[in-house]
């Protein structure tokens, strides 16, 4: 068990970093504008991320498994570490980076190292989703914006009452956003370990007060969810204040719109039950893929900006995002390849 925890440490670190950074995408404006207290935000965020991860995390994780089925623990450890390290160096170099994209790059590095043929079907599905998710968020945000404006014109709520309702909405939407973040992004944190932990066969099913049973994957996700929670409590406050005050500068009502749009998109790309529902009715279903919550939020902000008439939009940010789609996986793939080489030849571990 201890060995497993040591190997999982790189994934737990990714989880911590996700909690520290990505929770701010959901809660940044709420906390930054002082509409919601940090303590409330951190508590709701951690709880719902954990629930989302355990209840609905398997779908997106399965897609990562299609890309690279890493069956050895040392390999999974190295891939997660390479992803974490890539995120770290790119953040240091002030380049836009997303954990989702780093993990995919790291898996491709593993594919190349282990000479496993790359599943181009899965890769195209994943990369297509990266492009599609901010666009879809922009569309959702614009539609929600028109709807909210239409309602507000008719209902004419007093500013003070509006403030009261917006606070409640920020918490409710924040909870949904956290759930979706957990469901969609737990794959980044724990996805690469699923196959190897199952292969190692050291964990069994666990019964939760005989109410429900957690599979091995769900236990892994719960562990990852806890790591995310630790990230939220220990480090996200600063990021939330930066996001809320410096980067997006949204007013609370637009914050609700953008976070809701982004949460819906993360939810669509993570919900197995929705996928089954759509497939059962012969409708096109959303692929279950971990996407970048930061890029989705930026899509939402641009969507609202366009709905307002397209002024004050910083289009350069789009160029930065699209360069990240290529740069991040490339760097992560190289880092992963080198790291696997070192772990295999210096530390004599079996990585595939």
């Amino acid at each position: 068990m201890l060995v497993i925890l040591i190997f999982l440490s790189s994934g737990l670190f990714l989880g911590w970093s996700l909690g520290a950074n990505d929770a701010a995408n959901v809660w940044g404006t709420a906390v930054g504008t002082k509409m919601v207290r940090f303590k409330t935000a951190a508590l709701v965020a951690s709880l719902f991320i954990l629930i989302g991860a355990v209840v609905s995390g398997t779908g997106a994780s399965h897609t990562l498994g299609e890309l690279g089925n890493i069956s050895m623990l040392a390999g999974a450890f190295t891939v997660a570490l390479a992803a974490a390290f890539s995120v770290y160096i790119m953040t240091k170099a002030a380049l836009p980076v997303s954990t989702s994209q780093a993990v995919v790059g790291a898996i491709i590095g593993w594919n190349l190292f282990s000479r496993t043929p790359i599943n181009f079907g899965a890769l195209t599905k994943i990369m297509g989703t990266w492009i599609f998710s901010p666009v879809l968020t922009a569309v959702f945000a614009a539609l929600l914006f028109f709807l909210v404006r239409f309602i507000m014109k008719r209902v004419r709520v007093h500013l003070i009452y509006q403030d009261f309702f917006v606070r409640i909405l920020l918490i409710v939407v924040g909870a949904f956003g956290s759930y979706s973040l957990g469901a969609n992004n737990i794959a980044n944190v724990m996805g690469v370990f699923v196959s190897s932990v199952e292969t190692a066969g050291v964990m069994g099913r666990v019964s939760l007060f005989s109410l429900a049973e957690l599979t091995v994957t769900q236990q892994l996700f719960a562990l990852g969810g806890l790591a995310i929670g630790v990230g939220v409590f220990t480090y996200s406050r600063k990021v939330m204040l930066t996001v809320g005050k410096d980067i997006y500068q949204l007013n609370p009502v637009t914050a609700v719109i953008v976070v809701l749009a982004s949460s819906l998109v993360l939810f669509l790309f993570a919900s197995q039950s929705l996928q089954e529902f759509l497939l059962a009715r012969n409708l096109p279903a959303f692929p279950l893929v971990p996407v970048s919550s930061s890029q989705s939020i930026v899509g939402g902000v641009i969507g609202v900006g366009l709905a307002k008439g397209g002024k004050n939009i910083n289009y350069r940010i789009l160029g930065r995002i699209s360069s990240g789609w290529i740069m991040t996986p490339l760097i992560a793939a190289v880092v992963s390849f080198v790291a696997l080489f070192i772990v295999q030849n210096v530390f004599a571990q079996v990585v595939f």
Partner: protein
Amino acid sequence: MPSVFKQARAIVGDIEKYLENLDNAADIFELGINEYFQGNLERFEERAQEVQKLETENDRLRGRIKTTLYTDLLIPDARGDVLGLIETLDGVLGVAEHVVDQLSIEKPLVYDFLKDDFIRLTEATVKTVKELVVACRDFFRDPVKVKDSVAKIHFWEHEADKIEERIKRKAFEAEEITEFSRKVHMRYFAERISLFADEAEDVAERLEVYAIKRAL
């Protein structure tokens, strides 16, 4: 949560009462000035006291609104704007109070050929202030409409300016007013009454910016 809602309801009540007082004070100010120029000094004094009472009550309300907004951390994004608005509205009512005070103390002579102009001037300034109250209410509930009221405020303020100038010209050209000090006295009151509209216009211009910030 229910206590937060109660506080929200209380502050909405306070803001509404504040605006209602300003609206009433403008009406009473107009009635008072009319009484003065009709020569009913006793009734004018009653009106002057009513204006002062409303001013005092609004000072108290302003203090309470300020404390509640800050201690209960309401509307963090618009708090500064709302307080700025309330503070400057206080200045508007302050002008009205000052005018009735000065009339009561200095008791300027009423010249028949200026009477109508002073009454018209008061009418135009009061219309400016009453339209400002409409704009303030819209700011809280329907910020898109604020600019319509602001246009009307500009119109009435401009009217007041024209009447003010007319009074000044007439006063200085008139042979009926023999002493220079009396001419200056007329100028002083024309300017003071007109200041009521000027202050309202200043607030309206701020309000327009606040409304743009608030509109979706």
